[in-house]
């Protein structure tokens, strides 16, 4: 039983960043009053008919190209039937036999090695409304429905069952998220539900070509939950098999409070979706010219940018990877380098100082950063020209972040200009040496650490503004030779 292999496939749903819904003109803006962003179409009223949002199709094609899918020349929508009160028509307009795109690949990196995960298909569909239960679903006596979300465009990306560990699944999801955010087709926010992920998990004897009985896991609304849920589920299945139990094909919900997956006890007949081609929507014919026009607008994708950062700027693979985790962060880095042409120094400041304040993949926060790239470049130039020390610069950086002011203003206002006048410093050095004869004796006796103490005293006396190199030089001159 030791030789079990984990097999994971992911189904990712991404809400597309269109301004209007998939099949009607209602706004997709988040946070409106319940049932205030609906119309006969998205509320499924008798007589209403859908009309395809061109941007949604283009976002789908954009994503398909970014993950190497073949865009199907001919694709169409189909109706998927099941009854649930958040779904206004009791069918979902989705795609079935003829999806928008198929056969893609995504390269992921886990623990320093690279793997290629297959993408089976990418298709478009409409989102459902939101159900609010009175308390937990199991005990709620009634629920209420808000249809504002119903009809928001969704893109579903189905991977092949190519992942072999929860860590790989998490890496795949992260990589895919970065891509859709880079493409500007989805905001990638898992907590708000604009990116959702279901997983299929099964175990099989290592090396076996057949798939084991798969269990579908739902309700994992953060990266952390995805990894935890899958780790739990793999352990659960391993334990079950070890105890001679059979794995049943079922859907299980991740319960983050109790840290376990719980069976939904679904019955067989619930899954007869009765797909058929949507008669209200003519099929789509995607001509090569359209695809190429969209391809021409694709931004540089994270993987290519990472390679270019490492090669072109001479950054370490690790730094290049971190800098490209968000499109805004990578843009920030490059804009700064254009103003201040020392990529490694810029990288250090971005990775060590800027990322203390915000996550690397939070595009909104990076874009709204109170220190624009021009101001960071200005700060770094003050170090180069000796106006402030690197240590001082870190304090200035913090003030810049707090106040939004640029470095020269802060330095001027707070009188932070570095003391680089040899005459003035020589007087301070003399005073320090006179005040600490014992330390000078120690130094003469061979105690090299004494020098550090003396430098510290000079810096203290100058309130940190002394040019450290000059202080060292002057102390070297003044101290009696051993």
């Amino acid at each position: 039983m030791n030789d079990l292999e984990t097999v994971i496939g992911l189904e990712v749903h991404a809400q597309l960043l269109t301004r209007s819904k998939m099949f009607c003109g209602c706004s997709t803006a988040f946070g409106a009053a319940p049932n205030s962003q609906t119309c006969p179409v998205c509320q499924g009223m008798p007589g209403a008919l859908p009309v395809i949002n061109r941007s949604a199709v283009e976002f789908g094609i954009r994503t398909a190209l970014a993950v190497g899918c073949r865009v199907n020349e001919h694709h169409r929508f189909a109706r998927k039937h099941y009854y649930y009160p958040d779904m206004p028509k009791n069918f979902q307009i989705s795609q079935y036999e003829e999806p928008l795109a198929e056969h893609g690949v995504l390269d992921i990196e886990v623990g320093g090695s690279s793997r290629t995960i297959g993408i089976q298909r990418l298709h478009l569909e409409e989102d459902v409304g939101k159900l609010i239960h009175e308390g937990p679903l199991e005990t709620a006596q009634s629920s209420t429905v808000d249809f504002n979300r119903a009809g928001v465009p969704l893109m579903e990306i189905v991977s092949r069952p190519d992942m072999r560990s929860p860590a790989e699944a998490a890496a795949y999801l992260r990589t895919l998220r970065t891509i859709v955010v880079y493409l500007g087709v989805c905001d990638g926010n898992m907590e708000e539900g604009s990116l959702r992920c279901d997983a299929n998990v099964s175990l099989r004897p290592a090396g076996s070509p057949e798939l084991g009985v798969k269990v579908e896991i739902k309700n994992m609304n953060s990266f952390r939950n995805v990894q935890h849920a899958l780790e739990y589920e793999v352990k659960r299945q391993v334990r079950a098999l070890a105890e001679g139990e059979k794995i049943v094909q079922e859907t299980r919900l991740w319960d983050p409070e109790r840290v376990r997956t719980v069976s939904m006890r679904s019955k067989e007949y619930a899954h007869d979706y009765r797909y058929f081609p949507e008669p209200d929507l003519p099929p789509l014919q995607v001509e090569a010219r359209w695809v190429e026009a969209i391809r021409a607008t694709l931004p540089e994708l994270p993987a290519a940018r990472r390679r270019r950062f490492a090669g072109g700027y001479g950054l370490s693979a690790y730094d290049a990877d971190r800098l490209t985790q968000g499109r805004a962060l990578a843009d920030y880095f490059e804009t700064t380098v254009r103003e201040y042409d020392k990529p490694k120094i810029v990288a250090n400041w971005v990775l060590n100082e800027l990322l203390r304040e915000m996550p690397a993949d939070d595009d909104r926060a990076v874009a709204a950063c109170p220190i624009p790239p021009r101001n960071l470049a200005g700060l770094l130039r003050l170090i180069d020209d000796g106006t402030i020390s690197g240590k001082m610069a870190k304090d200035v950086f913090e003030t810049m972040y707090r106040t939004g002011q640029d470095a020269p203003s802060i330095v001027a206002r707070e009188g932070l200009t570095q003391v680089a006048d040899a005459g003035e410093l020589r007087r301070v050095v003399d005073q320090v040496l006179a005040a600490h004869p014992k330390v000078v004796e120690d130094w003469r006796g061979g105690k090299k650490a004494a020098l550090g103490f003396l430098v510290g005293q000079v810096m203290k006396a100058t309130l940190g503004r002394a040019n450290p190199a000059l202080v060292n030089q002057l102390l070297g001159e003044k101290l009696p030779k051993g």
Partner: protein
Amino acid sequence: MTQPKISLSQVEHVARLARLELSEADKERMRRELDGILSYIDTLRALQTDGVEPTSHAVPLTNVMREDEPRPSVPQTDMLANAPDPSGEFFRVPRIIEE
């Protein structure tokens, strides 16, 4: 006697899928009627259709799309006006038991 086209248990299964509550008498009558209609539909079997493309739209159109421009929604009160069981700004439904 030819084999019935549809059994009572199939009728029950289909009624569940279609969310139709049928009485026992309804079920048997429905089975009989569907059986008759399905037998008639079976005349299609006589027709050779291999290699014939299916028609799902009477008029061949492609790429009918609209631009991504938001339009005003219908006011909330109008959309809730027909609700059989409104609850404030929401539609209310009875207890949901997962299948």
